[in-house]
């Protein structure tokens, strides 16, 4: 069964540095328990907005970071220390690739 529904034009919110998400919202969006997010915080993979430890709030840019970290953990069967290490290396590769693109005309 296929039903169609056309809505009016919707406007969303960009999750950027100036927006914030709560711990609950992160959990809902990634379908994980609070403990999973807190483990990522402990490992230094994501960082709450300073001074908001209870309740925790995060920058809007945290969501893609959590999505990526959980994807790596699941797909490569890594532990969190491995995820943190992989993320550091991936970011470094990414910035080297961009430098290379600029030099390699």
């Amino acid at each position, binding site marked *: *069964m*296929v*039903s*169609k*529904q*056309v*809505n*009016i*034009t*919707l*406007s*969303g*919110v*960009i*999750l*950027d540095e*100036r927006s914030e998400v709560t711990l609950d*919202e992160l959990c*809902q*969006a990634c*379908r994980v328990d609070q403990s999973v997010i807190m483990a990522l915080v402990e490992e230094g993979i994501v960082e709450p907005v300073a001074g908001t430890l209870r309740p925790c709030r995060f920058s*809007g*840019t945290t*969501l*893609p970071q959590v*999505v*990526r970290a959980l*994807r*790596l953990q*699941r*797909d*490569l*069967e890594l532990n969190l220390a491995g995820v943190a290490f*992989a993320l550091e290396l*991936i970011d470094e*590769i990414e910035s080297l*690739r*961009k430098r290379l*693109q*600029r*030099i390699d*005309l």
Partner: protein
Amino acid sequence: MEFRDYYEVLGVARDATQPDIKRAYRKLASKYHPDVSKEADSEAKFKEVGEAYEVLKDTEKRAAYDQLGSQWKAGQDFRPPPDWDAGFEYSQGSESADPNFSDFFESIFGHGQHGFDRQGAGFQSRGQDHHAHVYIALEDAYQGATRGITLHAPEIDTKGRVSTRERTLSVKIPRGVRQGQHIRLAGQGMPGHGGAPNGDLYLEIGFNPHKLYRVDGRDIYLDLPVAPWEAALGAKLKVPTPSGAVNLNIPAGSQTGKKLRLKAKGIPGKPAGDLFVILRVVLPEAKTESARKLYHDMEEQSDFNPRASMGV
């Protein structure tokens, strides 16, 4: 549908041990993982590898797959045997599995249980959040755009049958959005149960590759070919930007690789990104007699030695 040879995908023998399979998967997964690899087909390749591993890592699924027999070759037209019952019971669901497995996978293992909200009636729970990718042109990030987005959501009817509900949303892509950012649409996720609110919809923004520009966060890079006399003597050139052409002064004595910054001509926002123009000096070909003469004149009249610093 096409038969998939999961052993071939992972590059292991049919009698490979479970640790062999795990090792092969790890190797391929770290090679093709979309977060790591930038090869164009890495995502498709990773899905293939993930599907093969989903089956072969699980001894029950592997046994079921092996029952199909070894006479099948990858890509062969495949129909499940008539007595085949897709309703194998698996002790482990496919919850972590990618919901986009092939038809071949689904014909053998059924739909699995991925992504469904299985809470019973009378239960109050907020709807699940939904995620989708949206690809836009770089220019859309400068001007903002409206995009129709078609979402497929699995739904279970009152008789427990699974169907796919398709819905089309018209979504405003705000000006200043950047690659990889998420846009949250409150209440547009899966419906809630028992009067609880709907989940949210998250759209992850990707940019289609552009033939002129490269994107790095808010900043844009453009390679600009210039003639030797433009680089040597300086010039005022018309340069394309995603928000329209602008005039750019090329300083005299510029070389290939020189970077010129057009402030705030990157992706708009607070702060706006910059547009960097990288000069690339392009030599005219010495094809005609007059062109060759120009090069000869330069050779004779100039003591230029590009290798002066090499001590030869």
